[in-house]
């Protein structure tokens, strides 16, 4: 179906290093599919990239309204990409609501592609607009490309057997075709995908493929575009096999890998909650890996079942978001007390309370470290990007199993739903941490300690080693209930020390930029990309700025003292009111920490960080 002569081939082909496009339309317009296809094709042509979907709030709002707007942003580049891009270079707006909700973020002078077919009076009314923004000056200063996509799709599919409504559903592929033309991408991958996706409905394959091609061909309208662009393959990426992956998916795979590396059966106890539910959905598919997924009646039952499964010899796992973590606090304390492995994944969302379930925030850190009764220490780590979620999940499993402890792994919905190219790991080289069940009754006591301070893991079914565990204080060694004063102190310190000893097997974080200087930008979790970009820019602008990103948030890794002492100030950037800043200040009162925060349910933009650092240095 591909023509031999590319339409518009005579137009100048401009090289660009990097481009950020945002597709925006109604929830029913298929923007997520469009974005994902563009992503995929860009990955296949070898760009580095990062993506960020922006879903509407949970319930489907009426079509055409502002709350119903769905967006997908992709940043692709021939160089390293750290974030899905701050402000888009191109905004595709399928209707007035999509336009008004997003226009504010389009780069000055950026390109705005609008589907004028959806700018009728009715459409404007649904978007609560009194005037047509295309006519009232709202889009001044942008390169506006108006195109009646509704109409063009209708014409392109005039002889299709599909109903009018179904025909209009092909709009997104028309739009995608247009963008493929503009950025010189091949149609093949998407053509194939359509073939597979609608294998059972050939008429849909044909219609969408036609629409895609029609959009591509439409690029040839000289008046519309002044030129085409090309973004070359990225040659910075380390050698390897790649695929594009979303954070939640990578996290799920990492948990599965963690189970394999520990030799344990994975038992997930979960209760659905945005944005963590996808982990349950994904792991539920892995039945042939022996993974058990148990959708419990609530978050408390979920963690308790997982802990029961750990007692019985599984790798217990529970996945949730902030409100669920709050509910699990009591049971986490039990896990601390009985010293069993357990992985708790918190895909953070904006709070407090129900908050904004689809928005990003890093506000569960202090809850994770401190939110339990009694002294109940738990190691806490955070993934920093979609692909890092794989490594962190594996690391969380390692710590849980090697240290007989619950572990909290923080993600957030920016990581969860974002995607980036993943250099697929060499499975031979994954860390090994086979769990050891003790079966020798000789000299066994349930709370005896090995030289690292760990108690032996004996699973029910092991002959001659019956024992009882529970949440009351236990006598050192025997594990019998004990109210003895010195024993309680001993056990409290043992629990504390065991968690602190995780420091022995974690790395000091890497420093990017000068190893001493004015400012060290420090972050954790999903802000890595923005901070990295900002720091790169600062350095490019000649500022004395280094940056580092922390995976292990509790206990803190070794070597920080030396690092912190090398900079005039440490700027802790986080999406909360300064939670890690607080932790660092209390651990290292001698250094000059500064806090930069944002609580808007959105990620940092690297420009705002850059600006802040600049101002800091100018003071």
């Amino acid at each position, binding site marked *: 179906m591909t023509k031999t002569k590319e339409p518009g081939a005579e137009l100048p082909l401009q090289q660009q290093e990097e481009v950020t496009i945002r597709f925006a339309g109604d929830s029913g317009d298929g923007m997520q599919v469009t974005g994902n296809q563009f992503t995929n094709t860009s990955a296949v042509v070898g760009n580095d990239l990062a993506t960020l979907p922006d879903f509407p709030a949970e319930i489907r709002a009426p079509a055409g309204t502002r709350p119903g707007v769905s967006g997908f942003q992709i940043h692709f580049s021939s160089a390293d990409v750290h974030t899905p891009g701050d402000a888009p270079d191109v905004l595709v707006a399928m209707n007035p609501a999509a336009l008004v909700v997003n226009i504010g973020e389009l780069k000055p002078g950026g390109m705005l592609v609008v589907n004028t077919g959806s700018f009728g009076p009715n459409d404007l009314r649904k978007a609560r607009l009194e005037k047509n923004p295309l006519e009232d000056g709202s889009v001044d200063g942008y390169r506006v490309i108006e195109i009646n996509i509704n109409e063009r799709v209708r014409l392109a599919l005039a002889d299709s057997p599909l109903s009018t409504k179904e025909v209009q559903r092909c709009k997104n592929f028309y739009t995608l075709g247009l963008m493929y033309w503009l950025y010189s991408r091949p149609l093949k991958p998407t053509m194939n995908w359509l073939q597979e996706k609608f294998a059972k409905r050939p008429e849909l394959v044909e219609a969408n493929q036609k629409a895609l091609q029609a959009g591509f061909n439409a690029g040839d309208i000289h008046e519309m575009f002044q030129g085409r662009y090309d973004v070359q393959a990225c040659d910075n*990426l380390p050698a390897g096999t790649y695929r594009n992956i979303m954070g939640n998916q990578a996290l799920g795979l990492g948990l599965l890998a963690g189970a394999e590396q520990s030799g344990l059966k994975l038992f997930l106890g979960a209760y659905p909650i945005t944005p963590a539910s996808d982990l349950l959905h994904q792991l539920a598919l892995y039945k042939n890996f022996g993974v058990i997924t148990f959708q419990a009646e609530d978050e408390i039952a979920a963690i308790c079942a997982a802990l029961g499964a750990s007692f019985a010899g599984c790798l217990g796992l529970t996945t949730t978001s902030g409100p669920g973590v709050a509910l699990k606090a009591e049971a986490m304390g039990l896990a601390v007390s009985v010293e069993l492995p357990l992985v708790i994944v918190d895909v953070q969302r904006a709070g407090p309370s129900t908050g904004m379930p689809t928005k990003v925030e890093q506000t569960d850190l202090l809850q994770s470290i401190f939110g339990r009764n009694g002294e109940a220490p738990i190691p806490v780590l955070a993934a920093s990007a979609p692909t890092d979620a794989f490594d962190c999940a594996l690391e969380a499993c390692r710590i849980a199993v090697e240290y007989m402890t619950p572990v909290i792994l923080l993600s957030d919905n920016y990581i969860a739903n974002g995607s980036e190219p993943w250099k697929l790991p060499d499975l031979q080289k994954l860390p090994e941490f086979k769990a050891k069940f003790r079966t020798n009754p000789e000299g066994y006591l349930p709370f005896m300690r090995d030289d690292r301070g760990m108690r032996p893991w004996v699973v029910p*079914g092991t002959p001659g080693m019956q024992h009882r565990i529970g949440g009351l204080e236990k006598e050192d060694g025997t594990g019998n209930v004990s109210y003895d004063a010195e024993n309680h102190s001993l056990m409290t310190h043992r629990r504390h020390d065991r968690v602190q000893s995780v420091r022995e097997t974690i790395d000091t974080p890497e420093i990017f930029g000068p190893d001493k200087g004015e400012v060290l930008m420090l972050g954790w979790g999903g802000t890595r990309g923005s901070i990295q970009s900002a720091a790169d820019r600062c350095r490019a602008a000649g500022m004395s700025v280094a940056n580092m990103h922390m995976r292990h948030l509790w206990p803190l890794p070794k070597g920080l003292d030396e690092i912190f002492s090398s900079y005039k100030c440490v700027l802790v950037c986080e999406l909360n009111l300064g939670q890690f800043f607080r932790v660092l200040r209390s651990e290292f009162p001698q250094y000059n920490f500064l806090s930069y925060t944002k609580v808007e349910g959105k990620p940092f933009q690297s420009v705002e960080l850059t600006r802040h650092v600049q101002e800091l240095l100018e003071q």
Partner: protein
Amino acid sequence: MTTDAKLKAKDFKSDQDVRWCPGCGDYAILSCVQGVMAELGVSKENTVFVSGIGCSSRFPYYMDTYGFHSIHGRAPAVATGIKVANPDLSVWIVTGDGDALSIGGNHLIHLLRRNVNIKVLLFNNEIYGLTKGQYSPTSRQGLRTKATPFGSIDHSFNPISLSLGAGASFVARTVDTNLKHMREILLQAAAHKGTCFIEIFQNCVIFNDKVFDEVADKQVRNDRLVTLAPGEKVVYGSDGDKGLRLNGFDLEQCSADEAMVWDASTASAAPAMLFADIDRASDLPTPIGIFRKVERSVFENDVYRQMDQVTSNKGPGDLKSLIYTGDMWNVD
């Protein structure tokens, strides 16, 4: 489960001092359970007792089996994890009326709904023993306790009705004053495939003494308790001469000859409900025995059946092919 078939009751005693109040009904239940374990010929290592928090929930410490004294109300969830993780284990829950029906009510009904093969022993003393005597969801309306100095105003749960409503596949009741009957019920429960819910009237000498005496005291129990035994007539009385029978939707007393035959496996749980609704204050005798016993698919069996099915359809999982999949590309 018959590896060490010659175990005696005392082999199921752990080395821990039993710490209930002298005279507490828990002692009798403990020794009955230990006896039944021996009788069943189960192995100690394949048996797990799980509990929440309460006087009754100390039970696991006293059994020389595996045990998990968890947190208040959560034993059903913990036990579900254990049983699903390893269906070869024989898993028992010991819980109290507060633990199971107050804070833990939801986990209990979901356990019963799912029909995980776990045996639940609910020690109902109609009081919070461990926290020194507040009323519980099974306490009689009007009970004066520390928390209700002027009498409680809450209606009480009927644990049997509640478990029937939750769709339980095995529902029974027994009393701490009749160990013969308790043994019988425990044996039947052990044989049932699915969640067994067993309410045990248990006397708390300290905070709610003699509350079951009006029906369970040895002096009166022959006339005030009636045993529901599947396939047998519903008869009672010191001379076994009295019976119960249906009159429309009501139960009425009759002679032993005229008594109805008990069927615990009807399609609807309505007959069991009818008996469950006989209150201790009623003229009719209070039913003990097996209210309900029906076959339903067992949760953990289905878990593994589905796992096997998927595995035989898709082949055993291979991490590498899961990771190396979809649109991939190479960078050299």
